[in-house]
């Protein structure tokens, strides 16, 4: 049955998608190597190669393995996670604007951290490990609020209510964030401001260790849900006809997207652009089938974050430049160019 449905056009699209993903993967590999050479202390490619092979000096090993590598790996993982989260949310809501930033999930994470800083201003700097936990709790709280707004007994969950409730949640949380942040002293304000803009400087292996399990569990599950997502994107009536229990499926995928977004924000701060454009770009390249869309989105997100991280590390004196800023500055013009070139 499945084989019969694969028409010639679909096979061609499949081949094309494989090529797209292969190109993304190669670009990521190239960017990875370039990124290893960038930083305050310059290492030549030969030095990098020697160090990786195990013949570097102690200092070179320290720079590469303790500073650069965790940052590079985290940026790849965060990029993939955010893009996947956006891809899932867009699939569930059927709205191209749905992403964790716009729906207030990132803001929830930010507010949780801010409240903590507001009441215990001295403790934040010593509590690198507390921040992710707070962020995840905030993201989850925002998501619960959004979901309870969207869910109605008898009617189930409405995608439109979900998106509107998300935007309302984001606006409310941002208002609280603003009121609180105006009362901080300038130093804490700068710290929070930078973190909210998205920053992965100072990441070490513990972050990778804490973050990786999430992705190892959640990504296969997302891929497993690809077929359901395909049905959901067809619209409620067709999904009902096909006999999928829409509400439960939506809930599952929503929870998945929130968990991903919360984990990503916890490690990387509120980076808002990846979840919006990467799924969009991927859809354009590989089509709407989620079996292809999900991996393509993740590769695209990983590449975007990797490039942004390399840029912040490569530009001298930009050590404090939030990676989220670079993501938008690189991503937005390209996205706009694509929009301008596209046909409706």
């Amino acid at each position, binding site marked *: 049955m499945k084989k019969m449905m694969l028409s010639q056009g679909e096979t061609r699209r499949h081949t094309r998608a494989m090529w797209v993903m292969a190109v993304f993967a190669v670009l990521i590999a190239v960017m990875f190597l370039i990124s290893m050479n960038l930083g305050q202390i310059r290492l030549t490619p030969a030095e990098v190669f020697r160090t990786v092979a195990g013949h570097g000096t102690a200092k070179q090993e320290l720079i590469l393995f303790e500073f650069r590598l965790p940052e590079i790996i985290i940026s790849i993982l965060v990029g993939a996670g955010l893009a996947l989260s956006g891809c899932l949310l867009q699939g569930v809501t059927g709205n191209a*604007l749905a992403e964790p930033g716009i729906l207030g999930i990132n803001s929830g994470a930010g507010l949780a951290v801010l409240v903590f800083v507001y009441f215990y201003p001295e403790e934040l700097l010593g509590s690198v490990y507390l921040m992710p936990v707070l962020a995840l709790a905030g993201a989850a709280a925002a998501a619960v609020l959004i979901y309870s707004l969207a869910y109605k007994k008898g009617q189930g969950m*409405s995608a439109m209510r979900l998106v509107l409730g998300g935007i309302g949640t984001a606006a409310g949380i*941002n208002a609280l964030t*603003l009121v609180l942040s105006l009362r901080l002293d300038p130093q804490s304000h700068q710290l929070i401001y930078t973190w909210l803009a998205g920053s992965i400087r100072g990441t070490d292996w513990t972050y990778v260790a804490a973050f990786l399990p999430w992705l190892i569990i959640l990504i296969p599950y997302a891929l497993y849900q690809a077929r359901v997502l395909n049905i959901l994107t067809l619209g409620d009536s067709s999904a009902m006809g096909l006999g999928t229990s829409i509400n439960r499926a939506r809930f599952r995928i929503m929870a998945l997207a929130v968990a991903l977004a919360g984990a990503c924000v916890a490690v990387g701060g509120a980076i*808002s652009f990846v979840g919006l454009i990467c799924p969009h770009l991927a859809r354009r390249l590989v089509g709407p089938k989620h079996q292809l869309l999900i991996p393509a989105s993740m590769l695209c997100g990983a590449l975007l974050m990797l490039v942004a991280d390399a840029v912040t590390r490569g530009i001298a004196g930009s050590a404090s*430049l939030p990676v*989220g*800023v670079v993501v938008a500055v690189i991503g937005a013009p390209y996205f706009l160019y694509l929009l301008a*070139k*596209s046909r409706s």
Partner: protein
Amino acid sequence: MSISAKDSALSELQKNSRPWIAGMVLLGGLAALTVLTFVSIATGSVHIPLETVWQAVTHFNPESQLHQVIRELRIPRAMTGILVGASLAVAGALMQGMTRNPLADSGLLGLNAGAGFAIALIFAFVPTLHSAGLLFCSFAGAAAAGGMVYGIGAMAKGGLTPFHLTMAGAAVSALFVALSTGIAVYFNIGLELSFWYAGGLGGVKWTQLDMMYPWSIAALIAALLLSRQITLLNLGDEVASGLGLRTGWVRAAALLIVMVLAGASVAVAGMIAFVGLVVPHVARGLVGVDYRWIIPCSAVLGSLLVITADVAGQWINPAYETPLGAVIALIGVPFFFYYIRRSGRGL
């Protein structure tokens, strides 16, 4: 598009429009607005009795200090609140109508972000610039963002579809927000910028109002004149062009109006989100799908929201004026939640 489909779209429009309720909303809203304007003038660091306010309007006495305060500070503040509320709400209504996306508003289209970026540049490089220059620059920033969004939409093959406009707006918005953040972090001016973005009508004087009101009022009137075309556009491009509407021109005109409305309000009151999103929704819920009613009702309800929030912001904590944008969100959000929960299958 067949004739019968066109007819059914139009009769659907007729059926889903409620002019009666619209009339009541307008009348009741205007009455409430009048009362609130007086309350707003009476409210402030010094409370002024309502009789004095009335006297200052009818029999102005230049000798009286209270009358001076009312004339020079309170009245421009209330008037600006009314104009800003109406402008933001109408801008949102136009955006939602023309993009057929209920999430669209001037914030999402990148206009607010463009204005904010211009302000960030000024804070970083010319911090001594006087307020008129600040106003002009924020206006230019909004126009630049609007021009970018429109340009991108127009360059796409197949023209300015709602989808292209919305996506381009979201991307331009993200770009300008990121650039502002970058500047703020790099020059360490995050706190000052946050204060400005938080918005408020606290320092508004006649000079700002004089600069703003011709633009805003002209744009509001233009929006009313365009409301019939927006209604048709909201039925979908096929129906609209089937009825002889030149959709490209209507979109261009609507975007220009939105640019003026948003630019002028951001210039005097900072970044006030949410009015443009929520108010048109509520208006549509009350009066149906006809933008000839939605636009005036949005204007009245938007003014009401902003002026109430301004008064509330001064009441919450008299010593420290709570930022207007925050108060609006704190009033608007619970109401919006209630509205989402209550409304039926429309959402």
